[in-house]
């Protein structure tokens, strides 16, 4: 379990030359530069798994203000302090943001933080919280925050034959094209816990190229609801996407321009949905190809 951070014994040292670190590396993703470090060699070796799709090693370590974030994982000491439960601790800068005795859980949290930081700090793309699949040459976007059921709908769409782009972010470029951000899907179990599931295990093909937006679906799950969507105007569609845009306040001009380009030729539907599998089939059946 991750617990609420408390003031305890471990603190990352501000100096990057400290010998308490087993190592560090920086990466660049979508224009954002982030540095990761760990106090333990085995933890350090596990850190690459939290990188976002498309991340590239940065040429040099960046601890300066030029970096968008520094994350530090302080691993459980070999000899824990008496009376203190052992826990790995995650810091952003000098701020303690999570701790857990379960390293996998802590790394999952780190992954979420890193991806979000990249989404916020990106200088080359616009990140919208949305599930994305490809279908007949266009992308279908399902914007929404957590607990709206977008991952479930994305999983149903790829099971029905759509190509997988992302269950978390629609990554838009200046032309309004959507790029793949194909991390494992986060599927919730009956207890509300999220488990990573690879697209391949769902029989899905992972997209390899950007696509124009063909359809935007603003929906949320309501048990027993029938799918009777109503069309959205281009303006409504932009607002639906802007509400889920990570850097909406930081880059509003870019957001308007890129979202406007994205929806220029897209249809958009709004409505509550029930069973994801059935709705997925209806959505795909009603989605024409780009050539028609």
């Amino acid at each position, binding site marked *: 379990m991750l617990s609420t951070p408390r003031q305890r014994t471990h603190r990352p040292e501000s100096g990057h030359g400290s010998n308490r670190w087993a190592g560090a590396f920086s990466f660049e993703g979508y224009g954002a530069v982030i540095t990761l470090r760990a106090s333990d060699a085995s933890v350090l070796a596990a850190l690459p798994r939290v990188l976002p799709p498309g991340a590239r090693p940065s040429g040099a370590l960046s601890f300066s203000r030029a970096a968008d974030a520094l994350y530090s994982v302080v691993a459980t000491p070999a000899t824990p302090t008496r009376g203190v439960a052992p826990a790995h601790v995650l810091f952003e800068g000098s701020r303690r943001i999570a701790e857990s005795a379960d390293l996998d859980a802590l790394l999952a949290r780190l992954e979420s933080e890193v991806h979000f930081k990249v989404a916020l700090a990106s200088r080359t793309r616009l990140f919208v919280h949305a599930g994305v699949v490809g279908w007949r040459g266009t992308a279908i976007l399902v914007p929404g925050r*957590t607990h709206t059921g977008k991952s479930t709908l994305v999983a149903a769409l790829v099971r029905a034959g759509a190509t997988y782009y992302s269950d978390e972010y629609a990554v838009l470029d200046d032309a309004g094209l959507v790029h793949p951000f194909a991390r494992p899907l986060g599927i919730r179990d009956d207890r509300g816990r*999220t488990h990573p599931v690879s697209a391949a295990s769902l029989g899905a093909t992972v997209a390899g190229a950007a696509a124009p937006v063909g359809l935007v679906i603003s929906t949320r799950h309501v048990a027993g609801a029938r799918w009777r969507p109503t069309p959205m105007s281009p303006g409504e569609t*932009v607002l639906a996407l802007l509400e889920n845009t990570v850097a909406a306040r930081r880059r509003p001009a870019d957001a308007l321009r890129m979202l406007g380009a994205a929806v220029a030729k897209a249809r958009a539907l709004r409505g509550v949905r029930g069973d994801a599998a059935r709705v997925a089939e209806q959505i795909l059946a009603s989605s024409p190809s780009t050539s028609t």
Partner: protein
Amino acid sequence: MAHLRPSYPTSRQTGLLIEQVGDDTIVYDETRKRAHSLNRTAATVWRHCDGRRSLSQLAEVLSTELGAATDEHVVQYALDRLEDAHLLEDGASDGSQRVSRRDALRRVTLAGAVIALPAVLSIASPTPAMAQSPDSGVIL
């Protein structure tokens, strides 16, 4: 039916980002961190609120641009929506003259017009924390 007094509304010009999307106009308010979508009717009224046109003159412009007869009540209904969104200069519209949706719809219907009622949809621009899925990818 409300009697409308002369008014010369002025659209707000500062602190706004504007993007045309199809027939809709997106206006982002950098001060209030809100975004608005104006349909064509509302956007036409807003664009011509220059502080020199009266309601009747705005109605004429609206009729010309949309190709359908309309009147001051429809304009006033648009101004009410625009004022609610803080897209008019302060005091540009007299709040006591508000026109109900029913009145505006009746005016449009009586005129046999095929225009949409003025509409302004608004959202608060999300903070990064609002846009974040808090436990995405995490097994707790």
